[in-house]
């Protein structure tokens, strides 16, 4: 069907929107000029728990059109996300919760009015600290992404008790914030009973449905435009309050309203990765064969919503052991609601699992690579290929042995894994004049390369050069697409596009529409992309500062649709993994009931200078029986295991095991 001549899939095609992005022409949500635009600024709760009794505004603040709060806000319909029920109750669920909205004719006026507003609040004692022994903890029914909280095979307890060698350790990961560079933003405008939203999100179809529910409208009356998105990493996967606030403000004032969240508000209103306390025990025979694993995660959610970071789930899939027990407990605190953040569950879970494996290797006197080879058959090929390219062999396993000047050096490794899935989507293909085609699907491109990859897929299916394909995405009026999340975008949308193209070719005519719902239901379950991460670090004996000299990822993620954009996804994930290992932490002040480092000067993400030598490679082999492209998702696997590889290297360099993240200089002095 596909002639080799026009084969676009697999080629390193540059991003279609590249010229628009480097020239400043690419438009993000807050960048659509409107007549008589008004600006929203949120007022956030200064207490973590309590009741808001009144809101008093300073009449001297000019240019204010309206101040909305629960005392005067219109009624909104409920959705499954209580965070969207803004101003519907006097209860305060966490510090930073939006409790009022100022709409003014200028940004400056809106911000000032919000700063001087007086809130009459009856504060109550709050509870914001996660502890593994918190009296209110409970075992939830399910954890993200809707899998059982508890699992068990065999008898882990007995097997651990009788294992020749065991490790029994607790790893603590801090709360983390997604912090895409583009803050969550919406411009809302009502056109009669139709709602138009320019919104930064990962799922235009879903946002339209949700906002429709909130305002009691059918989804087709909500038009969501999401041409370009400045990153999301999970935090834009569903409608966030900014969309509701903009629409509300616009409804009340009769003007278009821009609601761009200040960076500081992104630390409370749009989700985060919940902190975890992970107790992990691994048992092995003397010759390094795993016999049992027990992985128990303690985490937190908000009063409003149960979202459970599923850190123990990944342990169900990596090492086939006869005796396995995993579980989760959660406690609901007066804190913001956690949400998806790149590889929710897998990313923190693999830190505990793969650091504990390193500890086991040390205890066994085994090479960490050999230990993995013995116990993770699925990873054998990436392990061997990765170790070869990184230059692992001949490594002296003893910690704190290598020093060059003031720098201790060391290497570490860890496995990576991520489930391969697809979700139902619909695509439409139209034949235009001159052998050109329009491909339409309500997908989004957050920088993943989706736009480009879909064009490549369509070009091959239609047997035309990529230049003949016109991609339309980022608009909820296009055929319904699944969320850009769970590393499932390309698989889900590509499948629909493939189907539509094939349909058009086989049936003829000018247009074909293809819905994958049925096919996806029958997809092969339990498939994973796998990988291995290798790191080399140096640690200053003077300052304790850690530098990652080399970071390498080797992946098996099925067929790589575009090596150029794939590389960017892998490296981007690994760099975020570096941040997770070394820099990122939202610091809780229990007395104030909030994270106090809520900006980009104090919440550190890696800079240019932090990224030295970094590379990724892959075994490029289509996986049969998954989706027609033979691809697996690649957006998240880079952050799974890379932090553990770095932490293991830090131990190899210094002999210090850091079990509470991030690894910073104070822990190494």
């Amino acid at each position: 069907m596909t002639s080799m001549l026009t084969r676009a899939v697999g080629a390193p095609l540059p991003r279609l929107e590249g010229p628009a992005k480097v020239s400043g022409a690419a438009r993000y949500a807050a960048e659509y000029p409107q007549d008589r635009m008004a600006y929203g600024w949120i007022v956030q709760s200064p207490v973590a728990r309590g009741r808001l009794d009144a809101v008093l505004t300073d009449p001297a603040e000019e240019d204010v059109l309206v101040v909305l709060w629960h005392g005067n806000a219109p009624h909104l319909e409920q959705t499954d996300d209580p965070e969207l029920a803004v101003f519907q109750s006097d209860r305060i669920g966490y510090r930073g919760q939006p409790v009022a909205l100022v709409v003014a004719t200028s940004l400056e006026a809106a911000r000032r009015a919000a700063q001087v507003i007086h809130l009459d609040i009856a504060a109550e004692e709050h509870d914001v600290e996660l502890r593994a022994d918190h009296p209110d903890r409970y075992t939830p029914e399910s954890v993200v992404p809707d899998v059982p909280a508890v699992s068990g095979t065999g008898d882990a307890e007995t097997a651990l008790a009788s294992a020749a060698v065991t490790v029994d350790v607790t790893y603590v990961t801090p709360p983390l914030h997604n912090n895409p560079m583009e803050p969550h933003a919406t411009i809302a405008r009502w056109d009669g009973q139709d709602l138009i939203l320019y919104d930064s999100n990962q799922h235009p179809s879903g946002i339209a449905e949700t906002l429709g529910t909130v305002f009691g409208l059918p989804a087709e009356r909500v038009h969501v435009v999401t041409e370009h998105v400045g990153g999301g990493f999970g935090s834009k996967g569903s409608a966030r309050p900014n969309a509701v606030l903009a629409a509300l403000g616009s409804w009340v004032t009769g003007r278009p309203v821009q609601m761009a969240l200040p960076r500081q508000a992104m630390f409370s209103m749009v989700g985060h990765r919940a902190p975890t306390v992970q107790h992990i025990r691994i048992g092995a025979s003397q010759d390094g064969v795993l016999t049992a694993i027990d992985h128990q995660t303690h985490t937190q959610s908000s009063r409003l919503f149960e979202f459970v970071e599923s850190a123990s789930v990944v342990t169900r899939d990596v090492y086939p052991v006869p005796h396995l027990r995993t579980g989760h407990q959660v406690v609901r605190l007066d804190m913001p609601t956690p949400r998806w953040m790149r590889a929710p569950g897998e990313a923190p879970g693999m830190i505990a699992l793969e650091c504990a494996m390193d500890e086991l290797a040390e205890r066994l006197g085994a090479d960490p690579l050999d230990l993995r080879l013995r116990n993770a058959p699925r990873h054998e090929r990436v392990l061997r290929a990765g170790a070869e390219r990184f230059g692992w062999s001949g490594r002296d396993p003893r910690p704190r042995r290598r020093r060059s000047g003031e720098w201790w050096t060391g290497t570490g490794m860890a496995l990576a894994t991520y489930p391969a899935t697809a979700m139902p989507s619909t695509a439409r293909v139209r034949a235009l004049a001159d052998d050109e085609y329009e491909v339409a699907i309500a997908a989004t491109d957050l920088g993943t390369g989706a736009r480009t990859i879909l064009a490549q897929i369509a070009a091959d299916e239609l047997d035309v050069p990529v230049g003949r394909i016109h991609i339309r995405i980022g608009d909820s009026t296009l055929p319904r697409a699944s969320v850009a999340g769970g590393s499932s975008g390309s698989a889900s949308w590509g499948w629909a596009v493939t189907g539509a193209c094939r349909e058009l070719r086989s049936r003829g005519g000018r247009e074909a529409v293809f819905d994958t719902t049925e096919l996806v239901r029958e997809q092969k379950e339990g498939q994973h992309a796998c990988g291995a991460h290798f790191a080399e670090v140096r640690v200053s004996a003077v300052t304790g500062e850690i530098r990652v000299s080399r970071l390498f990822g080797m992946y098996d993620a099925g067929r790589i649709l575009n090596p150029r954009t794939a590389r960017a996804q892998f490296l981007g994930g690994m760099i975020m993994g570096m941040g997770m290992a070394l820099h990122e932490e939202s610091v809780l002040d229990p007395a104030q009931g909030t994270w106090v480092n809520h900006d980009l000067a104090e919440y550190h993400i890696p800079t240019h200078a932090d990224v030295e030598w970094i590379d990724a490679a892959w075994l490029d082999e289509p996986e049969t029986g998954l989706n027609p492209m033979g691809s697996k998702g690649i957006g998240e696997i880079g952050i799974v295991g890379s932090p553990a590889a770095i932490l293991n290297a830090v131990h190899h360099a210094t002999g210090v095991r850091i079990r509470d993240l991030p690894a910073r200089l104070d822990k190494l002095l």
Partner: protein
Amino acid sequence: MKTFEYRTAAGLAAGLEPGAVFLAGGTNLVDLMKLGVATPDVLVDVNRLPLHEVSGLPDGGIRIGSAVRNSDLAADHRVRTAYPVLSQALLAGASGQLRNMATTGGNLLQRTRCRYFMDATMPCNKHRPGSGCPARDGDHRNLAILGGSPACVATHPSDMAVALAAVDAVVQVDGPAGQRSIPVTGLYRLPEDTPERDTVLEHGELITAVDLPALPVAARSTYRKARDRASYAFAAGSVAAALRVADGLVADVRLAFGAVAPKPWRAYVAEEALRGQPATEERFRAAADAELAAARPLRDNAYKIALIRNLTAAVLTALAEDVR
């Protein structure tokens, strides 16, 4: 941000009405105004004043106009050769863009990065006197181990000021009450009971210049900063040092610590302990400890003691080896 009246400064000693402040690069002031922490009624822009020159002083020192940008100063040839510590400190701070805006005067007078201070919704004695200091029991990992008080344990965040303190720089001030000279080491106040006041400057006093005295030892000087990521981060601890060794003995030494106190901390005790002593790593370490004996760390910032000790030893050892 509160509304304000904007005007350009009329002259050097013009003074300021109550509620008015000087605007230089704005990288700290505009930031704090947006946050609602600074709420001036009038902004008096000093950027048009003739304060943009770096010039020689009769004694061989250097005069730095207060509006000289951090990036220009760091690149200045005289500074790079006669006071490398200053160039290095400037380059270790902020980012290329910020250094292009930030001025010498503004850098000295930038305010603490204490996370409570920078959040107007938080209690903080520095931004709302009498409201308390949540940092003591809360987040203080990057706050003071030296010079703090029960009312405030903020650190002064400037890198530049640490280098200036080490080389005996003098701030030239002009105001309604006339001109005066203040050594950088005497510019800052410790918080005691009134942490809202950072410096000894009176309202309306304008920094016109910073003078660097002729100081031969400064030609062998260096600045080293440790931080939580490789760049674009405030110091976790830093050391500015200048050293002259003769016959294996410390002939002259200047030492200042950053990110440990409400001001750049000139380490007089350590300097005294070193003068005339063998220039060995062991002595350097011991001298740092002598200075740090006064440290009163809180729950989460004791690491700064080890950090400063190690940095001092490393920096002085490197300088001593350089000489040999």
